[in-house]
């Protein structure tokens, strides 16, 4: 049975990146995409730690690719969001959207 729990901010970001990247998501591409959106360096170790946690919850699956010479003969590990992961990301978005809509307009805010 899948563990039920709230997604952390970083976990949610990773799930969204996995949706955006599709089947080609691996450590480097995920970290680069996160860096592009967040505007600061991301530790690959923290990306893998979150991915492993998400995999443990059944929200992400992974497969090992072929060894690549340019990576010192090491294989890439590709990650993909599962159906349950997609459902939880959607649910979190709906909750967050409802909560944002319920807030009074903050001074200086456009939307």
């Amino acid at each position, binding site marked *: 049975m899948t563990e039920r729990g709230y997604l952390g901010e970083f976990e949610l970001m990773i799930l969204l990146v996995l949706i955006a990247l599709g089947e080609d998501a*691996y*450590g*480097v591409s995920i*970290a680069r995409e996160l860096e592009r959106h967040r505007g600061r*360096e991301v*530790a*690959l*170790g*923290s990306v*893998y*730690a979150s991915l*492993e946690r998400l*995999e*443990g919850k059944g929200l992400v699956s992974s497969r*090992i690719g072929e060894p*690549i010479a*340019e*990576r*010192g003969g*090491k*294989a*890439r*590990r590709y990650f993909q969001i599962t159906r349950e992961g997609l459902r939880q990301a959607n649910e979190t978005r709906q909750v967050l959207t409802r909560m944002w809509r319920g807030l009074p307009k903050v001074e200086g805010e456009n939307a």
Partner: protein
Amino acid sequence: MRADSPPAIATWFLDHLCAERDEALAGDLVEEYFDGRSAGWYWRQVMAAIAIGGAQRVRACWPAVMFAALWTVLSPGLRYVQIRLLDDDAAAMQRIWRLDGPWSTRFDTSLDILAFLSVIWLGVAVYVALDSCVNGRFSGSRFVSQLVSRLVRALMLVLPTLAAIGLIAALVSAAIPENALAVDWGSAVSIPLSLKLAHGPYSMVFFATAIPLIFTTVRRGRRGNMAIHG
């Protein structure tokens, strides 16, 4: 000038201190390095990966950490009982809390090291036994092989850890005035000072040795399965 290959020492650290990671992370770092990232970036990533991996292991194995901490607290008492069996009370106290000089590691006889090893080994034995019983997989032959393997590991771990922490203790004690280290064994008031100065390095050595020994006993597999390593 940028080197043709990633920093070898950082790679060694990654391979040896972050062993539970699969090779994908190491490959990603190599790929990024060859794609133009700096050696500084590589070092930062390796250090972060080690820190995050360590934190994950502590979180996953918190009973082992708690046990190592408890055993560290109990260890001076156990050590005292051992030495008391061999010596009189005053000599045993001096041996436990002694500070001979700036370069003393307080382990200047093989008897001290054997006493240290036997206390740590006893701790590992108790933990292995408790863990086996709690998880319902106690087996006499495996218990003995685990203990023998851990005794050998303790021998290999204790001396380098003693050397490293002894050096740190020496540097710290060299910075303290000599009269501050003088301990009057006849006065009960002097014990807290000696506890603070002398037991610090001892506890650090003990804890630093106990943690990897206990961690290697039971480690959570990457996909959540319990696995015995060793």
